[in-house]
């Protein structure tokens, strides 16, 4: 994930950009303040580099492992800045593969996370997983899940992580 700064003052001064492994040809832009999410071709990054009007402020990398538990797909990974070894946090993605409707899958996902939390609590690990559900409709996104939804979720997660940065630094 890359956070860039634009020069024009009237418009938002920064935005999130993210590339997802399952969409190698795409790049997603988000401006949280305006609730905007846009899908672009991945070559936009080359264009931005050439234009030189955008500067990367923070670049985060989410890397880890992917697991399949029947119809559930889990990704657990650590969040590290691109050129450092500091652990900023741990991110977990849960995907229920059979259906794409968020409403229909809501109960199943919640139960799964409950089961997961219960299993985790027995291990007495420090910290806990927090789930923040962004308001997708504000971004113009519908019930059918798309990569744009993923991009918005990551933007929310990163914003949250930065907001609790000091707390995490103390814990680490």
């Amino acid at each position: 994930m890359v956070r860039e700064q634009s020069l024009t003052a009237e418009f938002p001064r920064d935005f999130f950009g993210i590339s997802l492994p399952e969409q190698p040809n795409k790049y997603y832009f988000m401006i949280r303040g305006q609730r905007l999410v846009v899908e672009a071709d991945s070559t936009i990054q080359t264009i931005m580099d050439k234009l030189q009007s955008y500067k990367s402020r923070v670049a985060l990398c989410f890397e880890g492992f992917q697991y399949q538990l029947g119809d559930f797909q889990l990704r657990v990974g650590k969040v590290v800045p691109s050129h450092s070894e500091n652990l900023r946090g741990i991110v977990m993605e849960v995907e229920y593969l059979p259906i794409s409707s968020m409403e229909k899958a809501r109960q199943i996902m919640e139960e799964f996370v409950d089961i997961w939390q219960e299993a985790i609590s027995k291990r007495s690990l420090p910290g806990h997983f927090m789930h923040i559900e962004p308001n997708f409709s504000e971004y113009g996104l519908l019930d059918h899940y798309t990569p744009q939804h993923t991009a918005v979720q990551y933007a929310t997660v990163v914003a949250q992580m930065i907001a609790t940065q000091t707390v995490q630094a103390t814990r680490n």
Partner: protein
Amino acid sequence: MMKPNPLMQQQEPQAVAIQNSNQASSADAPPKQVAMAMDRLAQAARLIADVRLGADRLLEALFIAAQPHQSNKPLHLFAKEDAAMRQHLQNLRTVGRQLEESGVLNDSLRSRSNSWGLHMPLVCPDGAVVAYAWKRQLAGQAGASAVDRTRLALKAFTDQKRQFFPHLDDGLEGQSNEPVSKKHCSTQVPPATLQEDLSDCKTFSDVLTRLEKEMPNLKVFTFERLDWLKRASSLPNSTNENPVETSKEHTFHSLNKLRTGSQGPVTTDKAAVIELLFPSVFRAIVSLHPAGSIDPDAVAFFSPDEGGSYVHTRGFSVHHVFRHITEHAAMALQHFLGIGTETALHFLLHWICSYQTLFTKVCSKCGRLLAMDRESSLLLPPVHRPYRHFSALKVSSTPATSSTKDQFPGAYHIGCFSEDL
């Protein structure tokens, strides 16, 4: 049909086996390989028919043995059939091995380049056997157009006959044109049965119309067999890299298909596939055999986002939840067929509709939505819906009010389900 001498049949595969071991299959010219493979497939089909007959005879022998005051006769019959069956199965195994070796039942020969342009016969996932894989599409189109031409010719003939020779009209206009042989049979059948056939045709669209009325969230489509394959392949697949673009063009194609597929009474006499779609929940496919009847012969469940040529009633979803439901549905289908063939489709379709609560209704036994299935070690929602007393419930419940949804059969996890429910 004359049954070939069983002794001869035993010798056949052995003779072929000897041939095979003497010549390396690569030394055979491709046309000969293809011919041999087609031959063996035909053999296999005959052996399978023999096995089926043998099974019938075994059941017959058991039935006779169950009658009181029997001599040793059923025991003899049983022993004889047992020996014959074992031989058939042994021969079948031999043929199967030969077919595998020559690359027919797997794709091993596909990659070999072949200057003759011929490929080994292919047994496709939906069971069709084609001699030349690359010509399948052409053959399919040629076959389809031949059927259409014949149908048009027959229709023209019938129209002219009706026009110029009205006194020869024998009251069979209501029947479909397609099953011609059926027509010949039915002229010898007393009129009472004919009336029943006609009312069956009417009931098919009745079944569907009633279903659509009672289930507001449901979308029902009917297809002819070839049309279904096209539709399945054009369904957008959620793992596509460019889902937006492909879904646009596929929506266009599938909209066309939908219009032709659901033209109502015109297609009910040729309908072979029924699609039940609960958007965002599941897609169920039911196949009818023969086409135009109301006899379901297979059912399968898929994700609403799944697409591809494997989406048919003998195929399986890539998702575990739908695979389990498909297996359970096969048993429900057998149960409904056992109750009565006229009502089987009606009950089956309504039972399928009870799955619209698949991801929301908790298990009626343990009260949870997700549970670990011990056998497969998977977390699954309640994938079982009881079918044994389903028909009784349907008959006694009042037509579509929102409260009947609660009276619907409960939902059960695999581990929470028991057969007597």
